[in-house]
């Protein structure tokens, strides 16, 4: 994989690379949209089992169309993985075992709710940290401003007539 270096001398070529990558991403997205969002037909007669298959499948990401669950995706891999989930449940394995099976092969990335651990900590607490930073900054700025004397502010519009510079 070529990587963009932050201080590349050939910035136009870089820009084309970026546009090219965007194009590829778009093509992928379109290819995924091509498979309409209707859920695939159940493949067994047991509605209770199918419901469990769909419940687990809804928690698992399809690696071919990455923003779809394997319940919604029509990619062949998703069909195969649903079949795998169905068979494991039919063999009496529980949901945790199915999830473990998938993560052993495809990693935490297949989980729409990845477990909290060192690698995913930023993912989980990142948004909270950003909000805290924002609120903290707002608080500090407001407090500083409230301590400033009136002269530090520009007059409001309605005070414009009383502004000595204008009269």
């Amino acid at each position, binding site marked *: 994989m070529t990587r963009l270096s932050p201080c590349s001398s050939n910035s136009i070529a870089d820009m084309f690379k970026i546009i090219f990558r965007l194009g590829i991403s778009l093509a992928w997205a379109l290819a995924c949209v091509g498979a309409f969002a209707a859920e695939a037909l159940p493949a067994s007669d047991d509605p209770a089992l199918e419901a469990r298959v769909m419940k687990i499948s809804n928690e698992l990401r399809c690696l071919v169309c990455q923003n779809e669950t394997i319940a919604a995706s029509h990619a062949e891999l998703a069909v195969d993985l649903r079949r795998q989930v169905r068979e494991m449940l039919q063999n009496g394995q529980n949901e945790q075992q199915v999830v473990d099976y998938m993560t052993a092969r495809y*990693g935490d990335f297949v989980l729409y709710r990845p477990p909290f651990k060192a690698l995913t900590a930023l993912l989980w607490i990142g948004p909270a940290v950003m909000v805290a930073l924002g609120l903290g900054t707002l608080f500090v700025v407001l407090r500083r401003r409230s301590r400033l004397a009136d002269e530090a502010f520009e007059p409001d519009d309605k005070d414009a007539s009383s502004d000595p510079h204008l009269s």
Partner: protein
Amino acid sequence: MKHVRYLVPMGILLVLLYFLRAGLSLNPKEVPSPLIGKPAPEFSLPRLDQPEQRISRDDMRGQVWMLNVWASWCVACRQEHPLLIQYAKQSKVPIYGLNYKDERAAGMKWLADFGNPYIASISDRDGRVGIDFGVYGVPETFVIDREGVIRYKQIGPLTPEVLRDTIEPLLKQLNS
């Protein structure tokens, strides 16, 4: 000194731009495999050319080998193929093929048309062994060591750069 504070938003913007740019250069299709450093999954599959013969994981013990996942319906495999053939001629490592979710006749024709770089291809008709290997985007290539441990996985077509900069040094290390 007073102007320094105006640099703060500028700095934040630059940091954001840096991350945006870094994000663009990452390939979201490349998901790191949890199988690296783990024993290759067990399999026993029929050979593509001689279905009555089977090849299993344990037949590979004691040699460093490469498993290339391919299919006749896979466009990127065709793109990768000449490189694979060229690399197989140098015989630095035995290359085996995993014919993934493919018809036997189509797979055989593909090899006849484009050449066969593989010592042997095994036929994963329903894709189960593929799932065990965490395959999601053909072609994929695995480097497996003497003890049967997966040491490297390439998602998508091999390139001369990957072979030269990553796989060759790894092979040297594994064979020494």
